[in-house]
């Protein structure tokens, strides 16, 4: 429990700051908006956190998100029904995860390098598939998809047919994912194996764990979640551009995981911590927006707040270690 106290405190403190920034900040519309963004980052944070727990890293997430969104739009423009396009995009994510995982486990390449290359390759594929996709284009080409797209938008991102945000569907999706990841991580043998691999791969192998298979599984889960977020991105935005969609999101995901208690050395982290870690960034962005400052200050404030957060977190963890 102590491990998540730091990030829990940070989240609460940021909400307090948010409520005090502007009269409208505490209204439910705004909170739903923030929650949706938290859900979106939360999904990729959970994915990369699994990889980080096994001692790996995935830098290709942002590109998979962007490519997933572009692929989703392009498939529908080409006449694939939205309900069929969603599983196809997720299949694309699974394939990316398999390739990443095989390169890491079979060829024994460094995860950092494999997924760094993946980041460029997949971004390149996205840009070759198309420059810009949007719902308008899909609907111009296939007006008959309107009903299906409206339903998807309502269920997956919580917007009704007029574009009004009704409920934080992406946050709800994240909670579902938290439940699933939490079950596997903390209640099943798989989770034990992932922690074991992250701490000491050799000892896990000598205990009979199929290390390669489990490392592959977490890369696949990570990329599949990123592709799903690509679908969400398309549904949420008016237009998606292949050269900037999802750029640097892998770093947001990794930051969320680390804030949530994952060690980049592997073997540590809890699902509640990850979810809380993912909630930090959208609140900061929202605070900056409401405080009426230029959006140019966002990166600086994000960076400084996160640095402060990690410092406080580290101090708390050091103290709890002494008392153990």
């Amino acid at each position, binding site marked *: 429990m102590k491990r998540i106290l730091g990030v829990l405190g940070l989240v609460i403190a940021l909400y307090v700051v948010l409520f005090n920034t502007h009269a409208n900040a505490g209204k439910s519309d705004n909170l739903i908006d923030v929650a949706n963004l938290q859900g979106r980052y939360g999904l990729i944070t959970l994915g990369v956190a699994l990889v980080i727990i096994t001692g790996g890293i995935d830098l290709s997430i942002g590109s998979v998100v962007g490519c997933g969104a572009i692929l989703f739009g392009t498939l529908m423009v080409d006449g694939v029904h939205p309900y069929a396009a969603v599983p196809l995009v997720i299949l694309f994510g699974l394939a990316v995860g398999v390739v990443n995982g095989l390169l890491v486990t079979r060829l024994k390449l460094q995860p950092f390098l494999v997924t760094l290359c993946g980041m460029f390759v997949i971004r390149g594929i996205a840009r070759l598939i198309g420059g810009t996709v949007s719902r308008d284009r899909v609907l111009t080409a296939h007006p008959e998809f309107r009903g299906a797209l409206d339903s998807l938008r309502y269920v997956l991102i919580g917007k009704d047919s007029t574009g009004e945000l009704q409920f934080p569907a992406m946050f709800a999706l994240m909670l579902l994912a938290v439940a699933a990841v939490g079950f596997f991580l903390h209640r099943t*043998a798989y989770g034990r194996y992932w*922690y*074991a691999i992250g*701490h000491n791969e050799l000892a896990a192998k000598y205990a*009979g764990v199929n290390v390669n298979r489990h490392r592959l599984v977490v890369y696949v889960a990570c990329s599949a979640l990123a592709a799903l977020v690509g679908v969400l991105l398309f549904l949420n935005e008016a237009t998606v551009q292949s050269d900037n969609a999802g750029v640097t999101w892998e770093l947001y995901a990794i930051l969320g995981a680390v804030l949530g208690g994952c060690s980049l050395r592997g073997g540590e982290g809890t699902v509640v911590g990850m979810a809380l870690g993912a909630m930090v960034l959208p609140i900061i962005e929202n605070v900056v927006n409401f405080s009426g400052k230029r959006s140019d200050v966002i990166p600086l404030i994000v960076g400084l707040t996160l640095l402060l957060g990690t410092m406080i977190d580290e101090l708390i963890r050091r103290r709890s270690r002494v008392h153990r």
Partner: protein
Amino acid sequence: MPTPRLEVRAARKQFPGVLALDGVSLTLAPGEVLAVVGENGAGKSTLMKIVAGVYTPDAGAVTLDGAPVRFAGPADAIAAGVSLIHQELNLAENLTVLDNLFLGRELTCGGFLRALDRRAMGAKAADLLARVGLPTARATARVENLPPGEKQLVEIARALGTEVRVLIMDEPTSSLTQKETEQLYTVIDGLKAGGVSVLYISHRLAEVKRVADRVVVLRDGRNAGELAEADVTHDNMVRLMVGRDLKQFYPKVKRSGTGGAPVLSLRDLRFRGGPDAPVSLDVRAGEILGTAGLVGAGRTELSEAVFGARAITSGELLLDGAPVRIKSPADAIAAGILLVPEDRRLHGLILPESVGFNLSLPNLDALGSPFGVKRRAESALHTTWIERLRVKTPSAAQPVGLLSGGNQQKVVYGKWLARAPRVLILDEPTRGVDVGAKAEIYALIDELAGTGVAVWMITSDMEELLGMSDRVLVMHEGRVAGELAGAQLTEEAVMRLATGGTST
């Protein structure tokens, strides 16, 4: 009696939960080689670290040439002429021998610029290297390119560069070849002649006999006795170290030892990274098959191949007479072939995780269900094995890395015993284990063999080999050099075979 070079009086050192030293005393004359022996956990390393200024004693006094000293740190001790050469070498691998010899005390010229005085250092290095029998040309070699023996000598040369009065050597030969060890002895003889006193710590009693003028034996943090040169024999040292009769220590109570049907058979086995000659052997039900050999004889590699951690390239493995295919540790474990590895910190345990986590890890197949791991069955497993093996831990939630070596090793045994092994491969079964836990582990191994488990024990500890084995295979350069049992099973016979001799 002349003033001793070094005297330690009633040194006491308490660590959290352990009293490492409980009033240990020793004296060291100028130019004397004093060996300090004792089981792991007897307090040897703590004593040495107190002498070398790494630890400060809670009580007691250290005097150097008659003057009381209290070192604030290793640098202080080195300045006073006391240098410790560690078990793990402390050289900067990426630098040259010359750089290492003067690391932290470079000879400089040019005042505050501290420009390196290469010429002066070169001259001094040549002198230091000559004193340890290394050629001058070595000065420019990078340390990482040297064989382990030469690294050891470079460490000694570095200590000599500080006008050393007391040189402490902690297991200096653990990674050396026979030839390198001989060279080290020559260097030690030279140091003695030069008036340097040496404190020599080793597990290898044969070595102690060769090199020591006097032996101090420690047991459980106390002086257990002292042997003058004439009395330094293997048996005397062991009696003082163990403090009990050897027969009791190595039980043969529960097992018959004659061996039943072969459980595990290796037929012309070759494996990746192994020797060209194939290996064949049988491990029988209810016996303890000991395997001896020098470091590098290929014993650990062979056991890794049987356990599936190393690829088998030809030959076959039979389990109860039927061929089995083992391509990974998971296959071996499924077949009931379990390995207690040589290096438990690397292969045996997930140190930051809890005792319970480690006990469960290879048993999760039995504990799983569609609703996750069965909590109640799991905690029953933890309690059972913590109690049966008498693991000293506050709870199953304690990180295993915080336990003592003996208790860590018990956890490694526990995680396998929960699986009911057919074949138990023990690679250095009591390495780094204190004497009390050792006795418990030996009793456990005896009991397991008594229930029909085929135990294959690989060990470099001669007493353990002779005390526990019903039958011994000696390996030399990757092949089985001979088999010994009963009256033939003597230390001399084992060493003859291990060094390439014949059994007759």
